[in-house]
């Protein structure tokens, strides 16, 4: 399927506006058009207050009106057709401003990226410009109560009925489905063949008869996670992405984009959720924490803060190296699991360092110190980043098997028709 692969150029290629003049244009436009971040707040915190995504949609509409939406998306679908270097420059310039970062993952970087590669022209024209205008938020309906790592073992069924499909089953852990408009939903269209060969990817409108969305309370007090129940949901033929029964090809590519997105390598991510390390002259959230605690003179704390900074610098450097390696064909695409694993482990370390720097006030605090409590809650959700987007263990399987070429794990379901396989 690599024929469909869309490659975003790393640098300006001559047909594009020069990066530095683009930067200046973006700088002055941003100053005129975008609202500043409130003092002491980052876009991540802001989007947590934007439960229904209304602010994000509003901000995305402004970007779209100014010609700064979808910098690395093709022009024919409402993007700007620019390079990664333009996107990086824009990210740096946008640091002080409110940005619709809610759209970044999964809408832009995973689902739109997959739709560009596998969608029909009709599907692309129907959805991509709407996404870039801020009209559509998307989510992924992949994981099921029966399992997430073994994605191809899913049990939600899609049964053909004339020129439609009828979908029954349930999806889970879909982040933000309640506020979103569309999903890419992977379902089983054939149970009599081995698991990878009987799947199909669909575009599914979320708010429609037969789809029930329930929010699930999470450990950090939010209710981002959702479970959906499908009861005879009708999906037209025209909403099949890729080929019927070849949904695994689409899903594999989707998972590539997902690793790229959570590993920090996606060119479609615009704006920075948490400014800090590597982002430019803005203090990282951990340095702020240490400063509030009066610990910037503590040698041990300085070591920890530097370690955190080093991890995020190296993460960016690794992302660039691996993207270059994949582009040059020196590494296979599954090498995208390397930065993904790096991001997961350095996030774990980031939160461990916070725990150390904040000390007691991360766990026991007075109302006026509630900023420190955010760290405590973030820590409770520490493993989220090592599960969402495929777990770290799965990343390690991918790296050892598909980058280093080591033998695959034995699988009891290999080459066996799905209806004869034992599953949850």
């Amino acid at each position, binding site marked *: 399927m690599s024929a469909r692969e869309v490659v975003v150029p790393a640098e300006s290629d001559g047909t594009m506006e020069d990066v530095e003049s683009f930067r200046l244009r973006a700088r002055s436009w941003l100053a005129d058009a975008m609202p500043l971040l409130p003092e002491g707040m980052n876009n991540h915190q802001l989007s947590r207050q934007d439960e229904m995504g209304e602010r994000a949609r509003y901000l995305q509409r402004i970007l779209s009106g100014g010609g700064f939406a979808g910098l690395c998306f093709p022009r024919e679908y409402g993007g700007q057709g620019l390079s990664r270097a333009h996107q990086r420059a824009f990210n740096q310039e946008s640091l002080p401003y409110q940005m619709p970062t809610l759209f970044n993952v999964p809408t832009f970087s995973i689902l739109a990226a997959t739709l560009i590669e596998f969608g029909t022209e009709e599907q692309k024209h129907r959805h991509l410009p709407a996404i870039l205008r801020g009209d559509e938020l998307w989510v992924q309906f992949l994981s099921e109560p029966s399992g997430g790592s073994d994605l191809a073992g899913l049990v939600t069924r899609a049964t053909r009925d004339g020129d439609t499909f009828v979908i029954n089953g349930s999806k889970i852990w879909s982040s933000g489905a309640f506020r979103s408009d569309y999903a890419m939903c992977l379902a089983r269209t054939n149970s009599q063949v081995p698991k990878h060969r009987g799947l199909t990817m669909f575009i599914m409108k979320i708010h429609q008869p037969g789809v029930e969305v329930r929010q699930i309370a999470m450990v950090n007090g939010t209710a981002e996670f959702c479970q959906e129940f499908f009861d005879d949901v009708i999906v037209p033929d025209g909403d099949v992405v890729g080929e019927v029964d070849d949904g695994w090809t689409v899903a594999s590519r989707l998972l590539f984009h997902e690793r790229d997105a959570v590993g920090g390598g996606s060119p479609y991510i615009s704006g920075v959720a948490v400014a800090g*390390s590597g982002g430019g*002259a*803005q*203090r*990282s959230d951990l*340095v702020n924490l240490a400063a509030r605690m009066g610990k*910037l003179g503590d*040698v041990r704390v*300085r*070591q920890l*803060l*530097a*370690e955190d*900074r*080093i991890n995020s*610098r*190296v*993460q960016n*450097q*690794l992302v*660039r*190296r*691996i993207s*270059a*390696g994949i*582009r*040059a064909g*020196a*590494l296979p695409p599954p090498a995208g699991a*390397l930065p993904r*694993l*790096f991001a997961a482990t350095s996030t774990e370390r980031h939160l461990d360092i916070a725990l150390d720097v904040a000390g007691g006030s991360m766990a026991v605090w007075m109302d006026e110190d509630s900023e420190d409590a955010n760290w405590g809650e973030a820590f409770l959700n520490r493993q989220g980043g090592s599960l969402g987007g495929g777990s770290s*263990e799965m*990343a*390690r*399987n*991918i*790296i*050892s*098997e598909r*980058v*280093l070429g*080591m*033998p695959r*794990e034995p699988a009891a379901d290999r080459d066996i028709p799905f209806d004869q396989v034992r599953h949850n």
Partner: protein
Amino acid sequence: MEFELTEDQALLRETTLKFLESTCPITTVRELADNEPRGFDPAWWKQAAELGWTSMLVTEDDGGGSVSGHGLVDLALVAEERGRLVAPGPFAPVNVVAEALSRRGTTGQRRRWLPGLLNGETVAAWCLGAPAAGLDHPGTPVVARRSEGNGLVLDGASQPVEAAAQSELLLVTALGSEGGLVQALVPSDTPGVRLHPARCLDLVRRFAQVTFEGVAVDPEWILDGPGTVASGVEQQLQTTVVLECAELAGALDRVLEMTVAYAFDRYSFGRPLASYQALKHRFADMKMWVEACHATASAAAHAVDADAADAAELTSVAKAYIGERGPVIVQDCVQLHGGIGVTWDHDIHLYLRRVVVNRTQHGTPSDHRERVFRAMDAEVSP
């Protein structure tokens, strides 16, 4: 290895690799360790110099030059290949001194010393006898008093310096008696200079402590080119660290490669080690770390080559990261080899030695983390 090389750079890498494989395979490294007090063969060093190993950081006007015009990036490619074969030779010291001469030396100084360094006849050592920015060197520093006639008189002792006893020339950094740093070009046979050989974990690298007792330096051999001496020393430190990191990345790459191959060959309970998930996951982590080491080593080389504003920070990011990870990776690879991994006959200890020495020289990971902290703090509170 870098993924985006120009054709010329790819050729340079290939030539370097072939040269090393044919003239200095690991068996030769072992022979040098046993039989060669200098740690390297001077005739071989001249051959290496002919391939450009000593001229890439020197301007073309001075007889240097490099294939891509980015001397340090090119030289880092050579360093990486050297790391893959734990090659001998006074590589970093000679290059750092040659670069310092080319950037900061007078015409007379360059004429006197550069040709020999470039053709491999002369070896030089970089003698950091006084604290560099943010790197605290314990022990007595070398102190420089002004003498009559505006020369210097050096007294004190340096930490063990690489290749000092093999060098004709020492680039000495000293603490000026009026404060601030001074640098001087001191032939190692100058009266009052004494060399005390040190022992080193690395089997083919030689270090010596250098002591100075009333060593007189003529004004013409004071190195005081453009910019402050401190900025010159900082630049020399960055070059050294970049070369050290590139060599580390190459060594780690080779160790992992060797160990992965072993995991395919070695059977236990009827199947290869490479088929056990518990081990596969460790290999996956190591692969990630080694790629990260390459990424950060190369980012540092590019930053220093371009004199980028964040060059100091990025060299310290690289040294702290690789220095910290390097020994962990090699020791884990030793573990995965089983008993043979801790024997003299297995090559892995040659790499472990190189990696540990590079980790500890020119700033430990903690020293470099402190430098990173200062850089990020300065960013917001100038």
